[in-house]
């Protein structure tokens, strides 16, 4: 009951926006811009002929691949940079310089290196999500409370035990934060990347709908679907914060 109550204002804003949108179409009698209902029928049309699922699947697959690759590189690299001072001093300046470059700026180079197939957007997703995850993991190692490292030193445990039972679990919550940021950026980038080339994906669907006969109802339907999927990806990552190994961080 409380949850419904607290989400009422948010719902109200969305409803008000839809009403304003509809009203604006009625008043201006726009021929190109669709009504909210037009968007719904457009989405249903795509659902029925199956193209929507194909595009969603293609986008998710690219994000999944690029993001998974980024996790595999970022987590070990971040741990190493966090633990070994020399590695941090050597690599951090380079990464800090590469990090603010928008993934969009990488598109020409991605096309040059990987062509216009699936590899280009996967590379763009990789490059955009790998840096935030490296940074978060490194910060995670640097912010491990000294008293825990001291305790481990005091008990004279092996390096393997130190890593397995102290460093990794202590850093895991920060890694999850990095993954949440990384996945958000990845989803942002895949749509942008798909607008350039390719023949599938939600980004392609939006550009194609516009080019093939000004189907703005499908453009807006695509945008809304992107938003909804982005939201559910983020809440999935949030749900990971409740797993056993990181719950300690959010308790209290």
């Amino acid at each position, binding site marked *: 009951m409380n949850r419904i109550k607290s989400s009422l204002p948010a719902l109200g804003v969305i409803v008000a926006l839809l009403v304003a949108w509809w009203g604006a179409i009625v008043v201006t009698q726009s021929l190109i811009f669709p009504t909210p209902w037009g968007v719904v029928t457009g989405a249903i049309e795509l659902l029925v002929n199956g193209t929507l699922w194909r595009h969603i699947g293609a986008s998710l697959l690219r994000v999944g691949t690029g993001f998974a690759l980024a996790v595999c590189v970022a987590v070990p690299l971040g741990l190493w940079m966090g633990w070994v001072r020399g590695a941090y001093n050597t690599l951090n300046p380079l990464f800090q310089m590469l990090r603010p470059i928008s993934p969009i700026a990488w598109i020409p180079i991605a096309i040059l290196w990987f062509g216009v197939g699936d590899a280009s957007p996967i590379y763009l997703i990789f490059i955009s999500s790998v840096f935030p995850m490296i940074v978060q993991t490194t910060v995670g190692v640097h912010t491990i*409370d000294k008293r*825990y490292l*001291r*305790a481990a*030193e*005091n008990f004279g445990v092996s390096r393997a035990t130190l890593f397995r039972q102290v460093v990794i*679990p*202590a850093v895991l919550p920060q890694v999850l934060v990095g993954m949440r940021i990384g996945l958000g950026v990845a989803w942002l980038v895949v749509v942008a990347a798909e607008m350039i080339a390719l023949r599938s994906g939600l980004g392609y669907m939006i550009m194609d709908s516009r080019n093939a006969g000004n189907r703005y109802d499908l453009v807006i339907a695509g945008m809304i679907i992107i938003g909804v999927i982005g939201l559910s990806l983020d809440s999935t990552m949030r749900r990971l914060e409740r797993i056993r190994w990181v719950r*300690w961080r959010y308790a209290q």
Partner: protein
Amino acid sequence: MHSKIEVRGLNKSYESDQGRLVVIEDVSFTVRDGETVAIIGPSGCGKTTLMNMIAGFVRPDAGAIVIDGVPRLKPDPKGILITQHGSVFPWLTVRENLMFGLNGHAPRNKAEIADRYAAIVGLKGFESSYPHELSGGMLKRAELARALVVKPEVLYMDEPFSALDALMSLRVRNELLRILAEERHTVMLITHDVEEAIHVADRILVLSARPARIQAAFDVPFPHPRRLTSAPAQELRVAILRELGVDHYGG
């Protein structure tokens, strides 16, 4: 009894914005095997620095710490440090915390030993709990058990009870005394609580304000269990407080 810990001419200073800050100046004392020595002093006098040096985490500028006749250069499991804020790993259960320092046992034995020590400190039934599910007093017991389980010869306790409320502090202290009566560890206790020192220690060293020097030493000849309200205990308390610069206590 032979001396377990020998502290010889310890000096330590830090560089600060105002120049060199001498924290510890020529501190020497010995702790006998099985003895409980409390070190008491005004806050900020360098007690924690002194403890960190003796436990092996900080190197002194001059002087030596000799344990069982061997100079101490780094921390080891023969002497476990327990601090005010504790270092029970929040991501491990009580059992896993207790098993942490147990090397060279079969896994099943480790769990058995861990559970036995959990029971000793009164944490039976909480072996699978995470630290955030425990109260402050239970957390302190868990830390004590994790130290005891590796059978250390020395316990270094740096204000171990000061994060607890008065009642809980008293309870955990009693628990500690009960365990010490059975296991005969050598204990170094740093505190700012005179009553706590009289309750637990065989001998009390009073440190001066910075730079810390040993200003006075008191024997605590009362048998356990101690009555802190007895006249001799109160007299000792007044004498120690006077050393700490509190002349008028209770009129």
